[in-house]
């Protein structure tokens, strides 16, 4: 008979309304056999007691409903952010509080990087540094004869040294948008947006997408997830070529692999019928640890990048409205085709106009081809108002809100992009729940760092770095936030029958925490230490 292990914990927060708390959980064949007290496994013939979690608190393994595998590719390069960050192997990288500190770190790193290779850093964010803006003169101190390139945390900016500028042919005579300059007209090393960045990235062979398709990135993604308690994560915009799927099936099946991955096939301009058949073919290749078959559609851009499609009154500074990634007409066609073929969709909509058009398209598709439990999910859906949540509820559309924006971009939204009124009601978790919409909250890693307890902290507190409370009326409780990082996203992935709570029959997927989120002060939520995870009954400690 297969072994039964009974784990004792200081406390088990189950998210199961029938037994919200427990002290013991019995695990057999990677699944939860029983939950309760010391004798919970007794009706099943008992089990071996394991006390390693005796001082810890167990929660259902967290579910990252909107992340990207690219997260795993970044650590190949030097970290240059202002915040402390832990790499997938558990090493702490201290945040750098000044440009001088960044330069010193790059000098150290340059000594270790082989001659002939560029010196590349990532995670830099000038808005958090009080000093002079990073420029090529600073980076020339790192090297004069090798290219030095610092990728900013938003991936839309790159600062490089003079050698890299020379390789790209950038000079005072360059007439290219996005090549920033000193007051004397010479390029200062800062390059804005992909067009201006491309000549450097190409010559230094920096390609994050390509890196993220390789095994080290997949493994790093899983380890990073484990360190923040995540046992199931999406890769929410994947190309999924056949060889990518072969690789993912092999890597995720390994005994030491700790993450269930849900990659969604991203839509690009192609015939809806071809896209539907690709999604359906992928669905047939799912395994226990790799869940395929759902798709992603990106309708607009980002609010902080001024590329989201907004309703009136638009951007605070009068910038033009954002961009469509899919023509509205084609959006109607592809949504109709996918819905008719019973392919579940995750649809990126940041601006309220994008959400509205998408809801119109979903309504038309669902009228033509009713699907009672489709769980089509709007992703980000940051500016949805009461009216749009009411429509989502009526249609059974789920919402995965980008609650991390409160902390990472909240002040910028309030002051620069959309102004106070809409900044206060963005990522409206309270409204979603009050309307009965299935709610998940996410990090969009690597846009913001993966960390469900931090996302939950944002949704509960709605505090910005400048100390604003952005929309007190939209705060949710800690219990609601825990639901929105476990069962909520599990529902948006149609996996709530398998994961998302600790109850008999589900996967033995747990987050192992040093403290109880329901007992600490709500403001301390993000400071709770994550000790590791249990994935399908296998223990992985940070």
């Amino acid at each position, binding site marked *: 008979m297969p072994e039964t292990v009974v784990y004792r914990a200081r406390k088990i927060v189950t998210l199961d309304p029938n037994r919200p708390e427990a002290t013991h959980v019995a695990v057999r064949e990677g699944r939860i056999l029983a939950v309760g007290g010391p004798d919970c496994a007794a009706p099943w013939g008992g089990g071996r007691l394991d006390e390693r979690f005796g001082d810890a608190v167990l929660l259902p393994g967290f579910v990252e409903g909107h992340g990207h595998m690219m997260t795993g590719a970044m650590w190949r390069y030097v970290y240059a952010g202002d915040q402390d960050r832990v790499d997938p192997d558990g090493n702490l990288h201290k945040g750098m509080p000044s440009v001088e500190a960044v330069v010193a770190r790059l000098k150290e790193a340059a000594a270790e990087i082989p001659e002939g290779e560029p010196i590349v850093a990532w995670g830099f964010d000038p808005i958090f540094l009080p000093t002079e803006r990073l420029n090529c003169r600073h980076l020339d101190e790192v090297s004069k004869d090798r290219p030095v390139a610092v990728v900013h945390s938003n991936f839309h900016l790159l600062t490089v040294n003079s050698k890299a500028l020379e390789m790209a*042919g950038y000079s005072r005579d360059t007439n290219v948008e996005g090549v920033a300059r000193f007051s004397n007209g010479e390029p200062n090393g800062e390059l804005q947006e992909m067009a201006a960045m*491309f000549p450097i990235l190409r010559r230094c062979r920096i390609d994050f997408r390509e890196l993220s398709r390789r095994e080290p990135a997949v493994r790093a993604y899983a380890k990073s997830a484990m360190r923040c308690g995540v046992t199931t994560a999406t890769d929410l915009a994947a190309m999924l070529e056949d060889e990518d799927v072969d690789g993912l099936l092999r890597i995720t099946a390994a005994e030491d692999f700790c993450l269930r991955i849900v990659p969604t096939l991203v839509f*690009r301009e*192609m015939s809806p019928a*071809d896209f539907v058949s690709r999604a359906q073919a992928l669905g047939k290749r799912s395994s226990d640890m790799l869940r395929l078959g759902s798709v992603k559609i990106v309708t607009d851009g980002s609010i902080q990048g001024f590329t989201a499609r907004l309703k009136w009154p638009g951007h605070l500074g009068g910038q033009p409205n954002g961009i469509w990634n899919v*023509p509205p007409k084609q959006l109607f066609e592809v949504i109709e085709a996918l819905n008719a073929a019973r392919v579940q969709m995750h649809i990126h909509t940041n601006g309220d106009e994008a959400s509205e058009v998408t809801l119109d398209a979903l309504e038309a598709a669902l009228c033509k081809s009713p699907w009672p439990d489709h769980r089509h999910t709007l992703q980000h859906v940051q500016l949805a108002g009461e009216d749009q949540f009411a429509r989502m509820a009526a249609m059974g559309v789920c919402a995965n809100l980008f609650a991390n924006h409160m902390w990472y971009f909240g002040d910028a939204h309030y002051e620069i992009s959309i102004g106070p009124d809409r900044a206060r009601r963005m990522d409206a978790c309270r409204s979603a729940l009050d309307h009965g919409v299935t709610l998940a909250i996410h990090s969009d890693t690597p846009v913001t760092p993966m960390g469900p307890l931090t996302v939950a902290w944002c949704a509960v507190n709605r505090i910005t770095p400048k100390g604003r409370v952005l929309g007190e009326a939209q705060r949710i409780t800690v219990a609601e936030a825990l639901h929105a990082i476990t069962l909520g996203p599990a529902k948006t992935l149609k996996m709530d029958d398998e994961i998302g709570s600790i109850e008999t029959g589900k996967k033995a997927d747990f987050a192992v925490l040093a403290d109880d989120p329901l007992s600490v002060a709500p403001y301390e939520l993000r400071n709770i230490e994550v000790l590791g995870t249990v994935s399908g009954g296998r223990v992985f400690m940070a």
Partner: protein
Amino acid sequence: MSGAFETEGGGPAPLPPLPVTVISGYLGAGKTTLVNRLLTEAHGRRITVLVNDFGEIPLDESLIVNRDGDTLSLANGCMCCSIGGDLFDAIDRILEAHPRAEHLVIETSGVADPAKIAQIAMAEPDMALILTATLVDAANFEAGLADPLLADTLVRQVRAAGLVVISKADHAGAEATAALAATLAQMAPATPRVEAAFGALPIEMLLDPAEAPAPAGHVCGPDCGHDHAHSHDPAQDHGAHYRSWSWSGAEALDAAAAEALIGAEDIGLYRLKGVARTPAGWVEFHRAGRQSSFRPAQAPADGLSRAVAIGFAARFDAGALDARWRALLV
């Protein structure tokens, strides 16, 4: 190897930049038809076309000699590549291909801002932007402008263009086409327009018109001064609509003044290209429609500066250009 980042060295001579044309336009404007023509007509060039999805192009199967994932190779040396996951990856593949194409045409998605795509070709030293052409569907453009979800996208595409191609004028009829021409004139007053009735756009207009004979189509400049509501017979000789100008010499040019002249909007230039010596070194320059570029270049073997230009007869004053050009000599 320490020489990895040396900019000069013993390797083969660097290839000249790959000329790039960006083709933009909303759904149904005729981009796919145009791409099909670029791939299959007897223009004698190895063109690579980058498209979102080549499944949409009604290519004659007998012309295809090879299929390899994202790339179709045709018997005439042309290739059609699908963008796949990432535009930048696709461009990199094309720049690294052996042999490299002679011209790259990028077909943008129906809602893309072509200015953003054109910026890539302007920034990358291995590419040279020739032209952004925006196709406008004469039968449906005005309806699109009336749609608040679409209007700004369409206007952006027209404003980014160096040349506006009015397609399907034969479907729309003379009256609607004339009204559209007026709308476009207001939207982008300095941008030349060409009516490509019956798909008859001379493709040299999109590739490198300064080297081509006067094309057999009719180009309406902003001050063309005639009734635009007539239909165009592609067989009719419209060579008289063009004037050209050329210059070569050993003198150096004043760089700043030359750059200003190449971008000038008051001499009716459509296309200009050349290479010239300046006190700070050699430069190459291009102009197509409203778009121009000016950047450092290798010296030509004969050490001579040269420039060639073409414009619409009704508008282009070759004499004025000649006088202003000579004023640049230092």
